């Protein structure tokens, strides 16, 4: 199973320029996460910080119980062997051909025979569709091929954490789709924890289990994909729809005057070219190629998300519940048209379609899962303060979902799940 990566209060700046600060998130083991963000918000810096190439000013990055920020160099090199990193341009060694590039980690870290190395390398090359190009030098191939070769090299040691820096940049939509499928298939096969940094909306909508966004030097949000995909946050809405109207400007931030001028233009009938349709909303997730094993991460995630469901914003709750099959709804004790069990149930009723079978309002307390549930719950969702934030009275509490208690018990800890921003 993949490794969990816990990031706590991470801040990074170059000189006086702060890149981002107080970033806290957890990459759940074996799940695919995507970090979105406009260009220049430090997504690549975040990735490089995660592998210890850049030292943050503050904060911790904990992997397997080791703090990457403060451990010895020797330990850092040990931990890095868990990582497979795909750099933006592939970062192949220019003096070696593709075969030697892909074989490099094997030759450095293992004592395998040359025949065995050859077998593994060719297998990975086939996986990324580069058979026949083994003898080419990185300078002689296209950017897309370099990227795929870089991925093959990152995979050759069977990493437990895969980090991809913009896997889609420089690739056409079709190749991007293949690459997304490849990453999901990989996740199904080796159950690695995957983090993809991108600004490709299609990838963000279809690939990940968890979705986060960096903007204005902070983590806007990070949590189950449904949360961001249904978010009302103006930044998220603008970014997902690729519009000019919104807080993101050509330079990173927009001033009031520009924003007002743009809105005035729009009101005067000027088309800014972006389609009117709102592509937010939950779309079906990419599944592994038929024949491959089921993604274990999906099942773990479902248990995890259901446990924190009542802490999520209503639209996300609705989306999640609607995406469950009938059996799952029964198992988790939730129904479309109803909230989660417990005292928060009334929060999401109202306009929703009622489930005919179960009566007007179905309130079922959380049941023990038929399957054993994994590890105690972590606070994965760390949402900032914003207007759609659930009111403390409406929604329950993580602790409560695990051990159902009388409703009053939860209110003492209310809003503990808020990551930061001086909540409560």
């Amino acid at each position, binding site marked *: 199973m993949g490794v969990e990566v816990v990031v706590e209060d991470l801040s990074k700046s170059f000189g006086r320029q702060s890149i981002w600060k107080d970033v806290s998130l957890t990459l759940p083991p074996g799940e695919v996460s995507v970090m979105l963000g406009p260009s220049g918000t430090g997504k690549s810096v975040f990735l490089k910080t995660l592998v210890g190439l850049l030292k943050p000013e503050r904060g911790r990055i904990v992997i397997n119980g080791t703090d990457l920020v403060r451990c010895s160099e020797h330990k850092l090199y*040990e931990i890095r062997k868990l990582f497979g990193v795909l750099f933006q341009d592939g970062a192949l060694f220019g003096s070696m051909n593709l075969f030697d590039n892909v074989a490099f*980690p094997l030759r450095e*870290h293992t004592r395998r025979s040359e025949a065995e190395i050859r077998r593994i390398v060719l297998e990975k090359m086939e996986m990324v569709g580069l058979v026949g190009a083994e003898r080419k030098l990185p300078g002689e191939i296209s950017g897309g091929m370099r990227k795929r070769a870089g991925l093959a090299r990152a995979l050759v040691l069977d990493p437990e954490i895969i980090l991809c820096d913009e896997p889609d940049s420089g690739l056409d939509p079709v190749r991007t789709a293949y690459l997304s499928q490849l990453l999901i298939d990989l996740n199904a096969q080796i159950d690695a924890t995957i983090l993809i940094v991108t600004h490709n909306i299609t990838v963000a909508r279809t690939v990940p289990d968890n979705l986060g966004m960096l903007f204005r030097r902070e983590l806007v949000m990070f949590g189950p994909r449904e949360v961001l995909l249904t978010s009302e946050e103006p930044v998220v809405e603008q970014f997902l729809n690729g519009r000019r109207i919104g807080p993101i400007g050509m330079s990173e931030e927009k001033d009031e005057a520009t924003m007002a001028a743009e809105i005035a233009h729009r009101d005067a009938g000027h088309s800014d070219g972006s389609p009117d349709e709102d592509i937010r909303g939950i779309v079906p997730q990419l599944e592994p190629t038929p024949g491959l094993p089921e993604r274990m991460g999906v099942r773990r995630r479902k248990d995890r998300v259901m446990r924190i469901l009542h802490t999520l914003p209503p639209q996300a709750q609705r989306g999640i519940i609607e995406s469950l099959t009938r059996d799952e709804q029964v198992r988790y004790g939730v129904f479309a048209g109803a909230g989660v069990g417990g005292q928060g149930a009334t929060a999401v009723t109202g306009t929703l379609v009622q489930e005919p079978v179960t009566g007007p309002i179905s309130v079922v307390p959380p049941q023990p899962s038929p399957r054993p549930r994994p590890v105690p719950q972590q606070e994965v969702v760390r949402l900032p303060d914003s207007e759609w934030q659930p009111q403390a009275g409406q929604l329950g509490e993580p602790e409560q979902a695990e051990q159902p208690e009388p409703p009053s018990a939860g209110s003492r800890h209310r809003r503990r799940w808020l990551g930061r921003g001086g909540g409560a």
Partner: protein
Amino acid sequence: MSSPTSSFPGAGALRETGRLFALGLDVTRSTIKRPFQLREFIQQSWFIVSVTILPTALVSIPFGAVIALQLGSLTRQIGAQSFTGAASVLAIIQQASPIVTALLIAGAGGSAICADLGSRTIREEIDAMEVLGVSPIQRLVVPRVLAAMLISVLLNGMVSVVGVMGGYFFNVILQDGTPGAYLASFSALAQLPDLWISEIKALIFGFIAGIVAAYRGLNPSGGPKGVGDAVNQAVVITFLLLFFVNTVLSAIYLQVIPAKGS
């Protein structure tokens, strides 16, 4: 980590110097760490030889000649012709040869090392290597520094021989010196420690040239232009350091080893 931004004049220079020394220590420590990159070491040695051997030989002939001519006329003026050979051998072996070697190692070998590492850095190859769990210092820098040291010791020997032969040629053929006296006086003033200090100097100069080149190559300031600047700086910094270190080493040597016959 963020270093507290102290702003007294020269702080930046001190910081750079500190990092340079840190790299030197890292390299020294990684040298004894296994596995040793023999293949890379041999390749780099061969590469440095191939770019330096011809220019070194060509430079050392006129260098020996200049010293011989200068000393030849000087010794004739003060009537010490019999010591021409001895003096020119001393000058060539102790001073000229390590300096010529070092200049060429830094100028031809060091600049190539710096440009190579610099372009690898901006192409993120160094980052990729670190992420793959391979220390670029051990994998790339150590073999290069060791190769620079080895080649500078070997080249130093060659420069000494070629320089002395050049001196002989100019003194005997062009200045009508006496071949016998020239050769016989070799051992009048020169002694074995002179050769040792020459080789030790070459070794240290090779180390400095390698470290400075690697340091500037691993830390280019932004983009391809930065690599060009880094190469330029590496050569200039190495030259400055070499002449300074040469002065110190010569002073120590002259204090510690008594001159022959005294």
